[in-house]
């Protein structure tokens, strides 16, 4: 993908894996059960899943164990906390979004029109750096609240509550 990737620089997907994990620190789920692990689900390649697994290793978020899970075709992603839809899974995206609609699952993707489709966080590449945009409306619809810290570093935020109006 990169035009001239420096060999020692982490690749875009590596960064995305790290960010995916870090998003978990800035999201508040309606029920935060310490005993229940945080599930990072990936709808995409096995390579990315393995990369994410490396990032997560044995770390915890808010005291919760973190599990990485690859969502295979036809599988219902209802038990996930975060669902990543890889751009390679473009055809599945709408089905997956429909499946998690109304459920407290943070949806992330690097699909260019992911926010338009009702996704919550969309990676964008700006000046060769991985950034992201946020759709607050979608998150609110699924009972998730995103930290203002996250919004601060977002490239753009949709559905930002203005003057307290929902």
């Amino acid at each position, binding site marked *: 993908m990169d035009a001239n990737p420096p060999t020692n620089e982490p690749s875009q997907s590596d*960064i995305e894996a790290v*960010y995916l994990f*870090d998003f978990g*620190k*800035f999201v508040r789920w309606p029920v935060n059960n310490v005993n229940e692990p945080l599930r990072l689900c990936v709808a995409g390649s096995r390579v990315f899943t393995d990369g994410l697994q490396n990032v997560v290793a044995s770390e915890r*978020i*808010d005291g919760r164990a973190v599990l990485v899970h690859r969502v295979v075709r036809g599988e219902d992603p209802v038990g996930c906390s975060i669902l990543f839809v890889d751009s390679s899974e473009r055809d599945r995206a709408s089905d997956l979004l429909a499946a998690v609609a109304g459920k407290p699952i943070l949806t992330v993707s690097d699909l260019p029109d992911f926010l338009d489709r009702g996704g919550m966080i969309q990676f964008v590449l700006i000046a060769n*750096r*991985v*950034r*992201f945009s946020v759709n607050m409306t979608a998150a609110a619809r699924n009972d998730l609240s995103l*930290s203002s*810290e*996250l919004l*601060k*570093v977002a490239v753009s935020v949709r559905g930002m509550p203005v003057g307290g109006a929902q």
Partner: protein
Amino acid sequence: MNLLVSGAVLVLAALAFFSYDLISFRLNLIHSIETEAQIVGENSVSALIFNDPVSAATTLQGLRRSPDIVCAVLATNDGAEFATYSAPGVAVGLRRRPLPARESEHYWLSGSHLLLAHRVVFQGKAVGVVYISATLTEIGQRARHYLLITMLILLFCMVAALAISSVSQRLVAQPIISLARTARGVSRDRDYSVRAEPSTASTEMAVLTDAFNEMLQQIEQQDAALSRARDELELRVEERTSELQAANRELEAFSYTVAHDLRGPLDSISGIAFLLSRAEQEGSHPETEEMIQRLKQSTQNMAALIDDLLNFSRASTATLKKDDVDLSAMAHEIAKDLMDSDPERKVEFQIAELPSVQADSALMHIVMDNLIRNAWKYTSHHEKACIEVGAKLQNGKMIYFVRDDGAGFDPQRADQIFQPFHRLHSKSEFPGTGVGLATVQRILTRHGGDIWAEGRVEKGATFYFRV
């Protein structure tokens, strides 16, 4: 001096306060910069995590409101510079130092420069380090302010102290100086009538001045008493001298009189002796018997005079042996003697019961004998006479008296009769030596008593005495 001391104290106090304030101010400043670092760090967490230096720089811009902060750097965990901030008009020039791995915060102070490093931690994991560099110029400003305020306070205090000291000079020192001047004048001129001016300034000064004046008054009184005593002493010495001179003259007159009175009988003895020897030669003895009688008489007179003189002398020199003396018995005895010696005379004695008196018995006998014999003698020209011996109480003291109704004396010469050899009657009229009453007076004086006489010519005389 006082001014210097209080000034030094003030400066020291100001210095102490100033250093305390500077130290606490510096600690406060460091603490506030620590707080800034914490806030910046927390606000930079997401920027660091999601690699957003622009957002981090925006966050760092928030440090603008702290004028002490010169520049700040946000570094990632691996020490790479992530975002920077510098105060307006200041170039970024921050020499970072590695934050010791175990510490979450550390600061380095060099002069007025502070470098603070704060580790940014998110969910238990270090995500970066905030470096803040600050100048402590405000401390210098504060020091200058302090200096200025201290100088002003010092100046004000000096002026106030000067004013107060000038007032106290007027209220206290001036009266004290004038008091000291008065005291010096008094001791120099020995003029104790001077008084210090009463002070109106303060009560303490008034008390001091009063005490000083009181002291002066006492000194003045004592001085007067002293000079009075000296004058009195001089007067007394003069008196004594003239008394002594009089006594001396008296003594001269006395010895002259004694010599003269002794000479009389001697002349007569010598004359009779001459006549007797001539009669012997001529062989005629016409009046031998008579001349021998006169010779006897002369020697008797001389013996009487010598006895009287011996009594007089004894009255002056004999030691007093005091005893209970019964004056009545003494008077009765003397009266009996007299009546036995001349039974022809018709004299009535009225002797009262007199209380006994503490005195020398032998000398009191001389007193009573002289007085009663006097009365006997001076009534001898009267056919009938009455002699009364009595006493009366006057002012708690017993006054004894011997009264007769004989020749009496001229009251104007009453005080002369007690002088030795002074006789108010001629020897031919009433015989006597003129020593008896002088002896009586001397005896009574030696007993602490006195004697005086009342009388008129041919109306009798009364001698009063007290023992």
